[in-house]
């Protein structure tokens, strides 16, 4: 494996292996940007990995009043799942429990797509018969009477099956605090890229996994080759001076968006990483046989 060194950071000659997924986008608005963000944050909460959380969710970006259907501040959230059918119960529960309930909120489709999922199918019945719809052009909006006025929710939302989940960067460091700072900066750079989310806490995973386990019933277990405390005990991927590894996982509406996000993350790590103790950047894969999408780090260098 021939690695490249840029600005004091070694970039492994490897690739991130990602999977085809289904995804939908929603626009959540509220009276203030603060409340649109509260609603979107709660709605995308516990949305880290499809393995245990049902869907991978995150905030794509904030929207100005000009960009939302109702002229109020808003946030675009993305939800990723194995299939449109797998997204349905997640959509119903998250919108029903977190958006309908949030003061002043409204919920609209945030992804133009020929295929759609019912968005208001559950929440509108909260109206107990007092709900009414207004169809304007091709869009139908439901108005559900609630205690602070009306909850407006669009009838359908677009869903795509061309989304990609599992784009990633592994950041290897000599200093734990510096590594976290540098990785946070990379997540912030990725947040500027459209159509992607980093679903883990703050965009960062510390418990990278490998497929399989010695225990029956566990489908994934710790990625021992990247665990610094096992350096001498297992066939390690880590050099002697690496004391911690953090991973950024990226889901995107298109393969191009994921590549753009990885490129932005790499650029940030190369520009500011070495000073913070970032020694290497690598990527996670399963040998190339499991995922349809491969992102080679050397192709994404700035």
């Amino acid at each position, binding site marked *: 494996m021939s690695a490249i060194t840029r600005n004091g950071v070694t970039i492994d000659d490897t690739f991130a292996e990602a999977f085809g997924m289904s995804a939908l986008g929603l626009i959540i608005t509220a009276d203030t940007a603060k409340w649109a963000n509260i609603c979107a944050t709660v709605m995308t909460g516990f949305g880290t990995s499809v393995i245990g959380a049902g869907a991978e969710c995150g905030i794509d970006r904030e929207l100005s009043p000009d960009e939302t259907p109702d*002229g109020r501040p808003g946030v675009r959230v993305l939800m990723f799942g194995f299939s449109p059918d797998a997204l349905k119960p997640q959509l119903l529960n998250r919108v029903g429990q977190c958006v309908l309930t949030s003061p002043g909120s409204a919920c609209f489709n945030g992804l133009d797509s020929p295929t759609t999922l019912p968005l208001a199918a559950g929440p509108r019945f909260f109206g107990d018969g007092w709900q*009414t719809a207004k*169809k304007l052009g091709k869009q139908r909006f439901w108005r559900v009477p609630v205690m602070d006025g009306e909850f407006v929710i669009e009838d359908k939302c677009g869903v795509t099956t061309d989304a990609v989940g599992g784009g990633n960067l592994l950041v290897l460091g000599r200093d734990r605090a510096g590594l976290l700072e540098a990785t946070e900066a990379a997540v912030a750079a990725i947040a500027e890229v459209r159509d992607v989310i980093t679903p883990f806490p703050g965009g960062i995973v510390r418990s990278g996994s490998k497929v399989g386990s010695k225990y029956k019933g566990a489908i994934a277990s710790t990625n021992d080759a990247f665990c610094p405390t096992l350096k001498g005990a297992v066939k390690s991927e880590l050099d002697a001076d690496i004391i911690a590894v953090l991973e950024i996982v990226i889901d995107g509406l298109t393969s191009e968006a994921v590549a753009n996000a990885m490129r932005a993350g790499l650029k940030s790590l190369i520009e500011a990483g070495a000073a913070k103790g970032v020694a290497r950047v690598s990527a996670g894969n399963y040998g190339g046989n499991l995922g349809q999408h491969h992102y080679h780090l050397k192709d994404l260098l700035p």
Partner: protein
Amino acid sequence: MSTLSFTLRAAPKHALDLSGLLPSRLAQLSTGDIEKLPLVTGVHAINVGDVFTVSGTPGDALAISADSTLLDYVGAGLDQGTITVEGSVGNHAARGMTGGTLEIRGNAGAYLASTAKGGLVHVKGSAGDFLGGARPGDKFGLLGGTVVVEGNIGERAGERMRRGIVVTRGTFGAAAGSRMVGGTLWTETGFGPRPGPLLRRGTLIAPKVDELLPTFADCGRHDLVILNILSRYVAKTLGPLAPKPLPPMVRKLAGDRATIGKGEILLTA
């Protein structure tokens, strides 16, 4: 854009049915064929060539230069393209229209845009009774699309209307939105007496109402998110024809409580 022009030579004595004059139907025909199209059938048959001078090239647009309330069914069944009428027309204009634009630079008669599903109707003058209404035998009146009237509208507009938007700078006559089941009637001036008899669902928007039915209940003043959506939608689709954006607060009157009462009159002033 090529335009086919029809100029009325003399005022007609009988009602003419202009539903055959649609850009999509005439696009493939020669002027000779177009002149043979019937406007009245039967013993007193009248063809296009008997009353109109036809000129220009068939294409996406028709221009009708005529001013007679005996011109019925103008733009009826219009699916694409543009029809412009320099003058007034009779009844049933834009009936069953599904797309395109009908511009009437005069007045329109009764039953404008009945059973229309889409497209835009723009009347420079006023419109008659039963605009977007259901004729005997129709299950519903207006089913979609947008109607903009710059003058006043007659009585019982939106009778059995199900969807779509009707906007006027002027007033609606008596009993607008009667038996309406959905859609939006929007006036920048006001409604005549007793709007919304047996209104089931749908929205009537006005700064004032001449006389309210006793079966409408005052629900108070509210700032509704749907008003922003509606204002932005009409601004986007109608451009300069759009009414002024709705104010943040409106007074909601729910009714008609003589039936299911899920409709509303929204008072903007």
